[in-house]
């Protein structure tokens, strides 16, 4: 399994960003991303230029749009046509998600607890979802300084509640990239065994083969007789042997190694810490698990603040 950094939430001058689509792709390449999605607000009009720039760059492009409504912002990735976002009221969202899925698109809730009206219009998620299982991903980290934000704590709390209900919903991070700056942003990594292409990125999101990192990348796999089990997949509960790897060489130009310092790894089962481990490049550990889900978090110092979650995996399911 190879882990590729991809940015899944961006804007250009086709909505309210400063980049041209070409500049966006160039910026993604310069920062070390392997893939980038174009998700302008309520439009795909930048797609033609984006496609050409992707072709030239060698990066993997993902087509998307950000539904930017009064009741919330929703990232739609890979949909081959438009589903009209207009007039979709809070109680109509399940139907809209179904239509997007019918068009092969994925849906993700963007920054569900961000500061909203009148500062950022429609940022707080108010749509009434009846079927959370239908939501493909949840942006638990958004924009700069994500590990320390209240909105991140609230989003992770929601995510854990959904996981506890058995919803297989993928956590992602979104730069919500409108323009270049020098702030600190987290990264989304997709785990892909075959070729890196748009369909495989979308499948990795669907399958929760995703890890998030504000600094070093932390990955986790369960070792079983049948082979490795990755985030999003399922293994039997009981004794589970985990291989944990930390890569601090990832994205060398895009995080501050003097300000983001890993200090420990914790294993979280069904919302509770069940094991604390030292930080090292690679380790194997056997833990006793119950039915539910199991995730690894990297805890450390983040710009002077102690005990911050600076990386996390999506969960492995224990049946």
């Amino acid at each position, binding site marked *: 399994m190879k882990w590729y950094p991809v940015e899944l939430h961006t804007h250009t001058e086709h909505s309210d960003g400063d980049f041209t689509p070409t500049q966006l792709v160039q910026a993604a390449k310069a920062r070390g991303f392997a893939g980038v999605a174009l998700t302008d607000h309520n439009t795909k009009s930048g797609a033609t230029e984006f496609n050409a720039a992707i072709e030239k760059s060698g990066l993997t492009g993902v087509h998307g749009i950000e539904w930017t409504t009064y009741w919330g912002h929703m990232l739609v990735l890979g949909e081959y046509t438009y589903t*009209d976002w*207009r007039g979709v009221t809070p109680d109509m969202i399940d139907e809209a998600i179904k239509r997007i899925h019918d068009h092969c698109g994925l849906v993700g809730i963007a920054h569900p607890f961000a500061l*909203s009206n009148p500062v950022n219009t429609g940022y707080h998620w108010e749509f009434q979802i009846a079927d959370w299982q239908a939501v493909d991903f949840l942006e638990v980290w958004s924009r700069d300084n994500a590990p320390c934000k209240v909105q991140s704590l609230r989003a992770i709390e929601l995510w854990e509640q959904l996981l506890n209900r058995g919803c297989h919903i993928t956590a992602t991070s979104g730069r919500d990239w409108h323009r270049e700056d020098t702030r600190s942003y987290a990264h989304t990594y997709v785990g892909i065994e075959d070729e890196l292409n748009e369909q495989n990125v979308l499948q990795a999101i669907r399958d929760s083969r995703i890890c998030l990192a504000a600094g070093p990348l932390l990955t986790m796999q369960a070792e079983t007789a049948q082979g490795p089990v990755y985030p999003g997949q399922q293994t039997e509960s009981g004794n589970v042997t985990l291989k944990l790897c930390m890569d601090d060489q990832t994205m060398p130009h895009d995080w501050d190694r003097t300000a983001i310092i890993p200090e420990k790894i914790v294993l979280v089962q069904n919302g509770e810490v069940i094991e604390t481990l030292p930080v090292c490049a690679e380790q194997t550990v056997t833990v006793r698990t119950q039915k539910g889900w199991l995730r690894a978090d990297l805890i450390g110092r983040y710009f002077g603040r102690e005990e911050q979650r600076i990386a996390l995996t999506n969960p492995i399911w224990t049946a």
Partner: protein
Amino acid sequence: MILYERHYNWTPEDTRRDIPFAFCCPSNIKRLLITFTFSPGAEQQPERCEMAVERALTRYYDRYPRDIQPMQSEQFFPIKNLITLSLERDGVYLGNAHRWQTEQVHILTTKHASRGFEPPCAMEGTWAGMLHIHEILSQVCEGYLRVEGSEDA
């Protein structure tokens, strides 16, 4: 040739309202020029901004202590009004100009469209659109929309 023209007066109560408009584009038209303006672009009065932002901050922090991520209302002043415009032709969605500018000009032909819109496959037909009032904090916000058709592309 003017195909559509209208003046608007909005208030904060119009926030989260869609304002539909429609016009017919005759066969001789090769180019549309859409002018959309609104004013004021932002609410400058600190008292009005303060109340609205404080409500937003209360909602944001919920039960979490504010010192986790300190923010002051004033850092967000003035508060911008946001109204955006979307378009469709014969039921086909063409896009949305989701941006903050208070004076917008959008040009559409079958070969080119201003940023936010895709060019239509033909100009002739029934056009429709919406003004999306994402936020008006000002007591009164005046808007103006005009669609002009031209025989020259």
